């Protein structure tokens, strides 16, 4: 299905992706992604599992390098930059991993403080107050001294969110922030994403399979299918799309009968 007219604003994009290709061995995952992300918007990436959404997110932060194509972050090309050259750009980005990727050897508070210490903040009082603030946002301020191994999956994910937002990044990349969370905490996270957007003008890119969350938080929705952008538009355009695949995806219809 051809992508409907883009809902992107005309201003120069914060992140610009052009012709992005990525394969792993013989498996072609991304086959020419073109996408612009504007400053301050919340873009939700949806699509069937295994279609390269996480791979795309990892390209935006430079954890993966494209086979072909280009990624511009605030006017700077990420392609060809070394790990050390990427470091200052990455400090402007918050990243929530699918499994939270907390450091096993550090407590909850130490995990959340990590980006601040690495950013060179030396004042312990400032670090403590910002860690406390970030943990309060995800309602985990009573668990600062716990080790990650002693947390539930949902709590780990919330600590991951606290770690992603504590450095007050310009853009936050969320890889399934609400997967495995109960509906109430899911709602808290959804509101958090919107609050960060409104209060701090944070740009968010969110991967989620939770359709209710999609319509709650998205300014724009991009669907990936077969390694390309299958749909790019606002929530209303998605909701009223005549495409049967999109309608089945939204409704969660597999076509199977029991």
């Amino acid at each position, binding site marked *: 299905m051809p992508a409907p007219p883009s809902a992107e604003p005309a201003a120069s994009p914060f992140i610009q992706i*052009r*012709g992005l*290709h990525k*394969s792993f061995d*013989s498996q072609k995952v991304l086959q020419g992604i073109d996408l612009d992300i504007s400053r301050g918007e919340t873009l939700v990436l949806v699509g069937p599992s295994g279609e390269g959404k996480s791979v795309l997110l*990892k390209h935006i*932060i430079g*954890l993966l*390098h*494209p*086979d*072909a*194509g*280009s990624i511009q972050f605030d006017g700077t*090309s990420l*392609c*060809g930059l070394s*790990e*050390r050259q*990427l*470091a*200052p*750009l*990455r*400090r402007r*980005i918050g*990243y929530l*991993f*699918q*499994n939270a*990727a*907390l*450091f*096993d050897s550090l407590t909850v508070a130490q995990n959340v403080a*990590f*980006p601040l210490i*690495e*950013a060179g903040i030396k004042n312990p009082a400032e670090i403590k107050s910002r860690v406390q603030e970030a943990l309060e946002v995800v309602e985990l301020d009573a668990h600062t001294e716990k080790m990650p191994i002693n947390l539930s999956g949902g709590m780990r994910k919330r600590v991951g969110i606290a770690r992603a937002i504590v*450095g007050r990044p310009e853009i936050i990349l969320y890889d399934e922030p609400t997967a495995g969370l109960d509906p109430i905490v899911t709602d808290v996270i959804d509101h958090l994403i919107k609050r960060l957007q409104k209060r701090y003008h944070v740009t968010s890119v969110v991967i989620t399979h939770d359709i209710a969350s999609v319509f709650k938080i998205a300014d724009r929705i991009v669907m990936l299918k077969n390694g390309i952008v299958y749909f790019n538009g606002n929530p209303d355009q998605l909701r009223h799309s005549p495409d049967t695949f999109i309608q089945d995806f939204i409704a969660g219809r597999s076509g199977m009968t029991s």
Partner: protein
Amino acid sequence: MIAPSASTLSPQLPTPQSVSSLRRMDDSSRGPISTLGRAVLNFINYFGQLGILLGEGFESLVKTKPRLHLMMEQIVRIGFGSQVVVIVTGAFTGAVFTAQSYFKFRDFGIESTVGSIVSVSLFRELGPVLTGLMVAGRVGAAMAAEIGTMKVSEQIDALRAMGVHPVDYLAMPRFFAMTISMPLLIAEAVAFGLGASWFVAVLGFGIPSAWFWMHTIDHTNLEDLSYAMIKGLVFGMLIVVISCHQGLSTTNGAVGVGQSTTRAVVFSSLALLVTNFFLTLLLNYIFPMGTIT
């Protein structure tokens, strides 16, 4: 913008069937020369990867501040944590070598000189090599397993995502800690080996203590100590570079962590033994043995 590679643009990629038939042809046509060539290429590739890691380590050394608290943490783990292993290794190596030497030296009536051969052997070979092998088993395995687990659980990607180079945070503190700890651990192993040798020779076999020490001190000099320290430094570097490389290149989940851990111990031990031979030749050229000072 990265130029698209030819393979990416190629519209006619091989089908699974053609790949499978190519693989069959490849397997059937692989003779001993092809196998040998592949092994040599893998060997060169492996050394290339170690070289890249060393290069990144050097860059880290020049461009970043050392992380002292992580270094101290690793010194405790490597140095303090290896105490039992090193003491037992050094002591029982000294003891058994003393007993074996005594049984033979007794035939020639020179059993009182047993301390000299034990001392020189401990300083020049047994101390560094056996301590190195024990540390490779204990510390090398732990390094590869810890870093490997971080790799497969995306903790290393999390470091990178926060703008932290994994070599700066994981490899360099271990490198510094190992280069400080290893010579000291070897010195400790040698000291306990000599102590055990004294126990066996003097208290066990009745060699006069004064004779034991006189021969030991007469035949042991500063060059022997230098041997031990230089070997300790080199072996420590080998263990940490090989183990960190294995950890950082881990893939394939828990199975991969197990494989990396095994490889770290095996490769470190083999590299240590091979390097020991060439290092001994080099050091003997610098500090020739056979002169009594």
